[in-house]
Structure formats: structure tokens, C-alpha cells
């Protein structure tokens, strides 16, 4: 019978399966397993994996750490709002504050060197979207996420906010400069 009526064979679970179905299930299942293996495999050989290191924090505590770094490593300021440009030593911990509607401060990094980037929000949720490298991370208040980043090309990068965060969302842009 059709799919709109009860199965005509009352013991439908004893009916044989069509060959085309078995074949396709075998193929699809194998492909699923390949896709599954790719993820742990990339953790071993790939260069883009999240460490998942994170801490509970508060806006005040995070702001304090960022301020200390800014006080220590600021090399100049930029723009009308005197945004600090920070050049931290390679390998160090760097703190980027997300707040309505800035990414603070600006960084100047060295190409090929690694930095431990800490991210947290002072208020609502924000989206760290590094362009044009196209790396996207969720930034939450109360949580401090740590990722080790290694730039692979010199140039000017922007941090666009890609989590909707209110009326200034489309003006929330920060900068990271990567020098040779």
C-alpha cells in the first residue's frame, strides 16, 4: 500500500530490503565515518584547532589585565579617539576587550610569531571575525577564551563584529596590523 495507509504486509519488518537501499546505506555510512575521522585527524595534523582553554572572569578583572598590557606595550595612538596601538612581545599573552561598540586595543603583531590571544566581553555577546583571514569566534561576557594565533601573512587586518550586539553592531570594527 501507499505511504498514506498502514503497511499492507503486517510483518513489514520481515520484508527484504531493496538492493539499491543497502548499497546506498553502506556508501553513506562509510562517508559519515570518513567525515567523523577528519575532525580528530585535523587535531593531529592541522594547524587550525581551538584549544578550548577558557576561564570564568568578570568584566572588571578582564579590563584590568588588558589595561596593564596596554600601559606596558603601547607604542602610539591612532584616530580621534586616541586608540592605543599595542606591540606586545612575540609569545606573550594579549588581551582584546569587546565592548559596545569597540574592539580594544589595536595590536601590531609579527608575522609567523605566535601570541596567546585572550577574548572577553564587557557587556553583551559579540562576534570576533578577523578579516580577511576569516576566523570567527564567539565572545561572551563572563568568559575569557584563550587562543594561540599565528599570523601567516603581513598586512592590515580588521576585526568585524559578527554577533548582533545592538544598534552600533555595524560600526564595531577593530584592527590588527601584522608586520614582517
Amino acid at each position, binding site marked *: 500500500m*501507499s*505511504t*498514506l*495507509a498502514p*503497511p*499492507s504486509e*503486517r510483518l*513489514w519488518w520481515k*520484508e527484504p*530490503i*531493496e*538492493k*539499491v*537501499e543497502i548499497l*546506498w546505506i553502506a556508501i553513506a555510512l562509510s*562517508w*559519515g*565515518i570518513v*567525515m*567523523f575521522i577528519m*575532525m*580528530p585527524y585535523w587535531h593531529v595534523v*592541522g*594547524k*587550525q584547532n*581551538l*584549544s*578550548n582553554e*577558557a*576561564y570564568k572572569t568578570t568584566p572588571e578583572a578582564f579590563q584590568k589585565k588588558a589595561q596593564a598590557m596596554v600601559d606596558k606595550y603601547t607604542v602610539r595612538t591612532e584616530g580621534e579617539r586616541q*586608540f592605543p596601538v599595542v606591540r606586545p612581545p612575540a609569545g606573550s599573552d594579549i588581551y582584546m576587550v569587546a565592548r559596545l561598540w569597540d574592539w580594544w586595543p589595536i595590536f601590531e603583531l609579527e608575522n609567523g610569531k605566535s601570541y596567546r590571544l585572550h577574548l572577553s566581553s564587557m557587556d*553583551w*555577546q559579540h*562576534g570576533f*571575525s*578577523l*578579516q580577511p*583571514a*576569516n*576566523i*570567527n*569566534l*564567539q565572545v*561572551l561576557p*563572563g*568568559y575569557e*577564551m584563550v*587562543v594561540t*594565533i*599565528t*599570523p*601567516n601573512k603581513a598586512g592590515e587586518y*580588521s576585526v*568585524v563584529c559578527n554577533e548582533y*550586539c545592538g*544598534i552600533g*553592531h*555595524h*560600526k564595531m*570594527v577593530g584592527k590588527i596590523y601584522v608586520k614582517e
Partner: protein
Amino acid sequence: MATTTEFRTCPDTGLLFHKPAEKLMKANAVVAVVFLLVGGILGLLVGLTRWPAVHLLGDSDFYLTLTAHGINVLIFWIIFFEIAVLYFTSSTLLKCRLATPRMAWLGFALMLIGAVANNIAVFQGNSSVMFTSYVPMPADPLFYLSLILFAVGALIGCFVFLGTLVVARAERTYEGSIPLVTFGALTAAIIAIFTIASGAIILIPTFLWSVGLISNVDPIMYRVIWWAFGHSSQQINVAAMVAVWYAVAAVGFGAKPLSEKVSRAAFLLYILFLQLASAHHILVDPGISSTWKIFNTSYAMYLAVLASMIHGLTVPGSIEAAQRKRGFNKGLFEWLRKAPWGNPAFSGVFLSLIIFGFLGGISGVVMGTEQINLIIHNTIYVPGHFHATVAAGTTLAFMALTYWLVPVLFRRDLIMAGLAKWQPYIFGIGMSGVALFMMGAGTLGVPRRHWDIAFSGGAMTHDFPTTAYTLLGLMGVSVVLAVIGGGLFVLIIVSSLLFGKRKSMTQKSAESLIVEPVTSYQGVGIGKMVAPGTFVLALVFLTAFVLYYFVNWKYLSETWGIS
């Protein structure tokens, strides 16, 4: 026991309609179409704003409209229609009275009040928080309260459905097991109950927080539980859509499933392997272990994806086998060439299947891969993906079913039948364009939910490549096409319901509305395969899937190192 006067038999299809159930189906379906209309107009405004050359709305209007668009289509249109499908697949297909029609009306009323109140809250202007309403960005308390009311109403609908299954079994209105389509709807209802419970668990504390009774809702907890609702509810849509695919294969071709066992097992996989699907949405959130993410997005072998891949084969496969049995048995594709391409119920389902699979399915698995999500999360790729799954896939399937329901349920002739032939193609092509161009722009990093990618007025700006602007322009053109297609649907259906020639409640119509069921697939196909053409199409799909999957790993490997 219900009295016989409470039933009518459709002279064309032989289906038995319980009159109180029929009224409920009509009410839910009509209200659903109204919300599609509202949501579609809002979608047009949003689309014309994201088209950089047009940039129609101002910033705060844009965010308000986007919030309203998402909720009206994703939640109100889809769920009202799903409730109609639940009543049809229980009461009508099981030839049974609907359990407690009064409760069903109560559910309907709550849903309607919730939906209207939510629109009021959003249009008052201080609830432009998007349908995800991530804490701690606050919305008006009415915003959360109205969604809770709607959810309670929908939950009542699910229980009326389950109750009807119980009544049917007790009153022996059918023999053996429930029909496959009802089984699919049951899958959807079970998932819906889990989902709505998660929604309540998170929205109730959020509501209390918004009125000041709770001091804080943890944002990670919110995201995990909210997405247990938000993502799993997409599995309701998939299950309901697949049930509609099977239903249309039956009424249009008399197709029976290739095998009941496989199709039912595939539905079961949806229930078993979705519980923590919220993992897909928190792949780049702080503090969640990779093991947890990898396991919960794939359960080691992508069994929910497997389920969709199975239905993707068995639905067209059963259509193929039924067509072959009717004599279109030549070569690989005669069955497809001779399919009723001018019948919007068939073309709608076929396009739904193709767009859902090729655009929505592949992109969904790719972006749900733990590491690849790094280059996709929150870009406009994401709405690109779900306009392929739910806006093209589910919506087209529901449109297709509606074309069949107009004569069968509403007993009206379709008017503008000539236009109706074209409607699924216009909407399907438009929506595919919307999805594809959004995905393209997302690959270039364009953010979602963003009023102005030129960042005018910002202290700092970023220059997106001109290709990104071109892609958004093409998306804008596709938006217009999709809205024309959606508008035609509403126009055709509403005017048919109002002005279509009434059909007799007792006399058979001239044209046939249901195809005699095929009883066996013996002797069709090529070699031992009953559906070789579908198998070839499935292999084409697999090739596209594999290529696209690895292309994205390559993109990922080219960006900065992250560890």
C-alpha cells in the same frame, strides 16, 4: 464513539475527514499562510536593505524587521502549518476522530495570541534582539512571554496528536502499524515535545530575568539550552518535510516505500541522534571541549545525516519505481522525463528535495564540522544554509502539499492554475539564488545580521572585496524573485479559497486527485535495481558533497594558525 455525522468521505480520495479536525486543519493552515505573507514582506525589506545598492531601511528599522522576519517565518509559519499536518496525519490518515478538539482550539488560540503579542512586542521597538534573543541583551518581557504562550499552544497540539493516535488504536480504526507518513509526523511530534521543553526551560528563566526576578542568566548555559530548542526544532521541520515528501509521492504516483523498514528506521535515527545537536551552534564558544563537540555533532558517524541521505534516496527511488511500474521503464531517466512537471505539488516536492539536499544538506554538514566552523560561524553563510533547508526545503514542500489540500480539504478548484504551474520554479530558483549568493558572500567573511558592510560612520572600517558586494547584489535580485514566487503562492491559495469554484462534497471530480497505489515493484528497473536512475543521482550528490567538503578543509588550511 463519534457519530457518523461528524465525518465526511472525500469523494475523490476516499479519505475520511473528521469535521472538527477538518476545521482545525483549515484554521491552522490559513493562519500559517498569513504569517508566511507577513514574514515574506519583511524578508523583502530585509533583503532590499542587504542589497548594498538599494540599502532600503535605516539601521534600527533593519534590525527590528530582521527580528520580526525570522520569528514570523521560522516559527509562526512553519509551526502553524506543522500542526495542520499533525492533525491530518493522525485524524484523517487513521480515519479517527481527533482527540479533544476543544483542547486543540485552546492550543490554537494560545499560539495565535502568542504570535500576535510577539509581533506587537517586536514592533514596539525595544525587542530587536533577533529570534535567538541571546542574553544579556534585553528584550521586553512581553517578547519572552509571548513566545512561551506560543510554545505552550504548540505543545498542546502535539499532545492532541498523540492522543489521537491512542484513540485510533483503542477504537481500532486501522489495522497493523500506522502509515509511514503518520510515522514521520510522529517523529516530528516527539522531537517537538523535547524541543519545546528545552525552549521553556530557557525562556522561562529569561522572562523572569527580564522582569527583574532573577539577577543573571549565564550566556553559555543560555546558548546550550536555547540551541537544544533552536537546532532540534529544525529536525522537526526536516521530519515534517520528509513526511510531506512521502505523502506527495503517494498521492502523485501511488508510490509505496521501497521498504517500510528502511524508511521507518531512518525516521527513528532522527529521534535517537539529535539530542545535543545544539553543539553545532557552539563550536567556537569558549570553554567547550573538542571531544564533546566532535561527538555531539556526529555521534561518531553522522547518523542523523545518514537518515536524511536515506530519505533522499528512498523518496525519489519510490517515485522512480512507481513510474517504472506504470510503464516508464526505459533507460535510466524516462521516469523522470515523463514526470508531471506542470503539477505544482510534484515540482514543489522535487525542487524541495534537490535544494534541501544539494544546497542545504551539504552546507550544513560542512559548517557543522568542528574546525571548518571557524571560517563560517556567524557569517552570512549561515542564513544562506538555512534558506536552503527551511526556506526552500520545508517551505516548498509545504507549499506543494497545500496545492493538493485546496481541492481535497477545502473542496475548492485551484484558480490561476496556469500561474501555479510556474510558482514552485520561481520560488525555488529565487530561494536557491538567495541561499547560494549568501553562502558565497559568507565565504568571503561577510557577517550576518549586519546593516552596512561598508561600516559608514564607524571610527574604523574594513574594505570587503568587491566580489562580496557583487554577491550581495545578486542575492538582492534573487530576493526579489523569491518574493515574487512566494507572493504568487499566497495570491493563488488565498484567491482559490475565497473564489475558487466549490467542489461537491459527494460527487467525484473530473480530474483525479490521487493515483491508485502501486502494489509491488516486481520486474521493474535495471538488473536487480528498482531505482537505478535515483542511484545515479545519489552518486552525483555524493561526488558534489565530497568535493565541497574537502575544498573547505583547504580554505581552512590557508588561514592563520590557531591552537
